[in-house]
């Protein structure tokens, strides 16, 4: 893996400060995690537009909805798991059903949870947020994309959920990168199989593709920075071109990227889809990389799983079995 860049939470915190003068309607609400999510940077720069809401996510989300109904554009920045799960009903009713421009930052998305174990690992947030009508769901790959997607979220008239990571991540995109909403990005061309990845897993997918290439397997890598609206066309094109999709996500295998891909290709271009992610089980304490490794989410494991799936698919095709 390349040398780590800066963490998405740092980029997000800096982006809020950077956008503040251009968006005087923007305010930030913090359920007492600002030093973790880095909205502390905004607090220091714009204390009059920063609201310390105490340890009360539900109140913070609905207060944000009330502010949004009066022309403000509030960010609620909290741990992903407590936004998506604890405040799910508040997001559903007061934000999504009302269609208000509340912007949600799910910090500490997925596994790298500061060694928080099962309760703090948000491996179902994408599933929950994807199920909310009218919600845009963003999963940036690196710091530059996190920053750009904070801008993108501000440009959306309705609510948005931006998932960011705590840990330092390798740089995939330069500072000039401007992602397009709802459009997957091809990080590497390929024809034997396609790896579809979200967020921080896209860098791992690229490394897995490099390993596969050394073994003579050509893997297309698609980065889905937008989970919703889902780029069904890119997934279906990959299914038609390659015949095997491997989805890789820092999330449970159900309800996130893998599910979105299956839904898309099942309707348009059915093909085999191998979903890599966390199982239907709670995570546990331990080093992040040890847990990723346990669940087959290192570049080497991803490559091995993809290779096995490709052999299996080719064997079945050769035998003519379903």
């Amino acid at each position, binding site marked *: 893996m390349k040398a780590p860049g800066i963490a998405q939470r740092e980029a997000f915190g800096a982006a809020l400060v950077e956008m503040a003068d251009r968006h005087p309607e923007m305010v930030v609400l913090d359920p007492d995690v600002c030093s973790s999510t880095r909205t502390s940077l905004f607090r220091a720069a714009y204390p009059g*537009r920063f609201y310390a809401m105490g340890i009360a996510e539900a109140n913070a989300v609905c*207060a944000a909805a009330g*502010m949004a*109904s009066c022309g*403000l554009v509030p960010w609620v920045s909290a741990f992903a798991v407590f936004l998506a799960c604890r405040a799910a*009903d508040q997001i559903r009713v*007061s934000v999504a*059903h009302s269609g208000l421009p509340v912007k949600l930052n799910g910090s500490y998305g997925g596994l790298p949870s500061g060694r928080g174990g099962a309760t703090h690992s948000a491996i179902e947030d994408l599933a929950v947020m994807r199920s909310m009508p009218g919600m845009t769901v963003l999963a940036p790959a690196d710091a530059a994309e996190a920053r750009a997607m904070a801008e993108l979220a501000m440009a959306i008239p309705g609510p948005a959920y931006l998932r960011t990571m705590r840990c330092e991540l390798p740089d995939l995109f330069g500072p000039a990168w401007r992602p397009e909403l709802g459009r997957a990005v091809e990080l590497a061309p390929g024809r034997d199989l396609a790896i579809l990845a979200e967020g921080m897993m896209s860098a791992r997918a690229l490394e897995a593709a490099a390993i596969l290439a050394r073994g003579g397997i050509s893997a297309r890598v698609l980065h889905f920075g937008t989970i919703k609206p889902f780029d069904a066309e890119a997934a279906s094109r990959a299914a038609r071109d390659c015949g095997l999709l491997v989805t890789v996500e820092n999330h449970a295998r159900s309800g996130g990227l893998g599910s979105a891909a299956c839904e898309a290709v099942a309707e348009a271009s059915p093909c085999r889809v191998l979903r890599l992610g966390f199982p239907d089980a709670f995570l546990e304490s331990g080093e992040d990389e040890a847990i990723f490794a346990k669940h087959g989410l290192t570049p080497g494991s991803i490559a091995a799983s993809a290779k096995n799936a490709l052999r299996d698919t080719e064997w079945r095709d050769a035998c003519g079995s379903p």
Partner: protein
Amino acid sequence: MSEQIGVLQGSAGELEARARRLRRLILDTVHRAGMGHTGGSLSEVEILVALYFRVLRNIDPERPERPDRDRFILSKGHASAGLYAALALRGYFPESLLEGYDELGSPLQAHPDMGRAPGIDISTGSLGQGLSCGVGMALAAQLRPELGGFRTFVLLGDGELQEGQVWEAAEYAGALRLPGIVAVVDCNGVQLSAPTGPSLAPERIADRWRAFGWESSVVAGHDLGALVPALEAARHGAGSGPVALVARTVKGRGVSFMEGRCEWHGKAPNDEEYARAIGEVGG
């Protein structure tokens, strides 16, 4: 001095006539729809009449989005029949719209939907969320002086106070001495399946608000002569901090066989019950 928009003049007798009319419209609405929260709509009638015909400032049925208007949130969103009847009576839409209540395609959804009906300041329906939304509105009024320092009134049910989020909002606003917000509790003493019990007696509820740093008092919730000045005083008092008014009310008020009865929490009258009920309320 020019009359402020939203504050209609009129004698106490006229307000009482509006309350009678509101009860009649509620009964018409839920009877026609065959559904609705009759008991909790009838208990909030005087509160709605006092707010929409006396207390709320700068509300304008011709311009329901007017930025400097006082806000109203029906946190007990299931009592929507009462709110819709009040909005119709106040001129936000014709009374005939009430005929489509809870029908497919109607702007008058079972629970208030700000995207569909005029005059709804925020969508509600999941109990416990309205006070937090009101806190957000009060914060916006504080941050943006161009909104004219509007007030936000939030109507909660007494049973709704069992939702923990209410007290998250109360704690936040009380600790901050947040100006601009008035909570009104429709304390009708009955929830879906049982009486609310002693812990939710009006004086105990008022004590709770005070413990959270709010000014609080109990008022007779069906006495317009007491309710209007109490709400006016709350509106004024909210200039320096949050105020909670606990309105002592009767579930199903105005219809003898509905008063204080759990069974009328979420039920509409049949033809015979409807005929008896409208005979009792007049309007």
